């Protein structure tokens, strides 16, 4: 039996592919790209939320948000480790991010302009991420699937903290309700775009489905998200910024209007509100910390030398 046969058999049997197993180059490349993009998203996602940690309205909200952003750093670490099992280093991946050769979720190129945005990110952005990640728990690459199981547990806490922020606003003053509505107006469409282009235009979907890296298509995931989220929004008393949003009795699904894919592609290609700033901040932190990393390496070498001397 060749490596390729074994690989196909593993996929067919819904078993997991493990790091030392033979795998097609395309499979490896696709996974590296996808896991790295996922890791980068966790890390870049710390910026828009970090923007409000220092201004969180109560001490309790502040520590919850800090803990959440800390989780995201942890998720980034996990995912980079999962990618490293495919024979690529974290430093290489970071370099690809810094030079624009790898992407992160476009959602983080939108600014957080009010405290309600922190609620909307938790509810909508993390909510969308969970829908995607629950499906990825079944992905065919073992280390990625296992990382997803752990990450999903923490993400559901994130989504709840976001919803809890909005719930407090919904029960608050007129100014608070207006703040919430404004945030939903700005975050609703971008969160729907998080699932990627429609299936018909998605270049990676078919092969990824065949390899069982991807288990559910973009459009199906988007629909799951819409169906679970619209009733939650009604409970908050917000209006979704989509005049075409309607419940279809026949299918039992909420139907949405047309997504502005021009906006999606513009942000993906680098022309979102904050693409340049997000990467610049990341590069600044990385370069600003070079002396620290160099010192840590130099010190470790000295300790090794002393030990062997």
């Amino acid at each position: 039996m060749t490596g390729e046969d074994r690989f196909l058999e593993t996929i067919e049997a819904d078993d997991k592919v493990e790091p030392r197993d033979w795998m097609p180059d395309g499979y490896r490349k696709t996974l590296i790209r996808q896991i790295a993009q996922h890791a980068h998203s966790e890390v870049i996602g710390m910026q828009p939320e970090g923007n409000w940690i220092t201004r969180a309205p109560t001490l309790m909200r502040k520590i919850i948000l800090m803990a959440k952003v800390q989780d995201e750093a942890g998720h980034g670490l996990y995912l980079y480790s999962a990618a490293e099992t495919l024979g690529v280093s974290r430093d290489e991946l970071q370099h690809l991010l810094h030079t624009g050769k790898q992407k992160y979720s476009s959602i983080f190129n939108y600014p957080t302009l009010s405290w309600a945005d922190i609620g909307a990110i938790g509810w909508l952005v993390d909510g969308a991420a969970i829908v995607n990640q629950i499906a990825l728990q079944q992905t065919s690459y073992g280390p990625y699937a296992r990382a997803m199981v752990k990450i999903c547990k923490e993400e559901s806490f994130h989504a709840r903290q976001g919803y809890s922020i909005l719930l407090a606003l919904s029960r608050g003053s007129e100014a608070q309700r207006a703040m919430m509505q404004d945030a939903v107006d700005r975050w609703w469409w971008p969160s729907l775009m998080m699932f990627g282009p429609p299936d018909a235009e998605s270049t990676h979907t078919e092969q990824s489905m065949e390899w069982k890296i991807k288990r559910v298509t973009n459009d199906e995931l988007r629909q799951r998200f819409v169906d679970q989220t619209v009733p939650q929004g009604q409970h908050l008393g917000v209006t979704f910024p989509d005049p075409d949003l309607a419940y279809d009795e026949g299918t039992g699904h909420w139907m949405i209007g047309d997504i502005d894919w021009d906006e999606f592609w513009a942000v993906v290609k680098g022309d979102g509100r904050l693409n340049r700033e997000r990467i610049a901040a990341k590069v600044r932190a990385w370069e600003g910390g070079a002396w620290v990393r160099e010192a840590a390496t130099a010190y470790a070498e000295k300790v090794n030398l002393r030990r062997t001397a």
Partner: protein
Amino acid sequence: MTITATAAPLLKYLVRLADDNVVLGQRLSEYIASAPELEEDLAVANIGLDHIGVAQHLYSYAAEVEGEGRTEDDFAFWRTEREFTNVLLVEQPHEGFGELIARQFLFDAYQLELWEALSLSSDERLAGIAAKALKEARYHLRHTASWVVRLGDGTDESHRRMQDAVGAMWRFTGELFEADDLDRQMAAEGVGVDPTTLREAWTATVDEVLAEATLHRPDDPYQASGGRSGMHSEHLGHLLAEMQWMQRTYPGLQW
């Protein structure tokens, strides 16, 4: 809100301890997503969380002692800079990772001794808060001391930067060991500790770590003071303006 001059000494004592922690936690929270490595983003956030958590416990207890129905947030968000009684060290901004570590290390070494003493407080509630904080302070100190050593004894550049960073924070360490009437009263009652008694152990810790880091102890004779009586550096007002902005802009709301 104002804490009156005749307020219970315990109330004032709890508030000064809490102020140190909330201000330092706020400083650390500024650093999110700026660390040299993801691992350090995690660690700095973790240390910041611990400090703010301790502040919550202390303010809540202070509010109970006061008995006027105020909350931890009233203490954190509704006092002015002249009413904050934190030491100057914790409000100092950090230019980068080196200064952040220097500030944190010098303060961790102090808090380790402080919490150890307060964990024996005759006030059971304070002793409980201190015992929990003591465990956290041990981790903080282990982490920051190891960085002082690595940066001090790393490269020529890191040695220079770390020496400068320790130098920049040094003049704010004397205040940690000043005792005022409130400290002496609390110590006499067995509730608090006289900070002057913490200096020897702190000096031993700091000297040992600096020596291992090949750094010399700064010899700047000038030592700043005034935080405990509300005479702060210019930095605190800005820190509070940012931290308190939401509460001040939208007063009286639930979040």
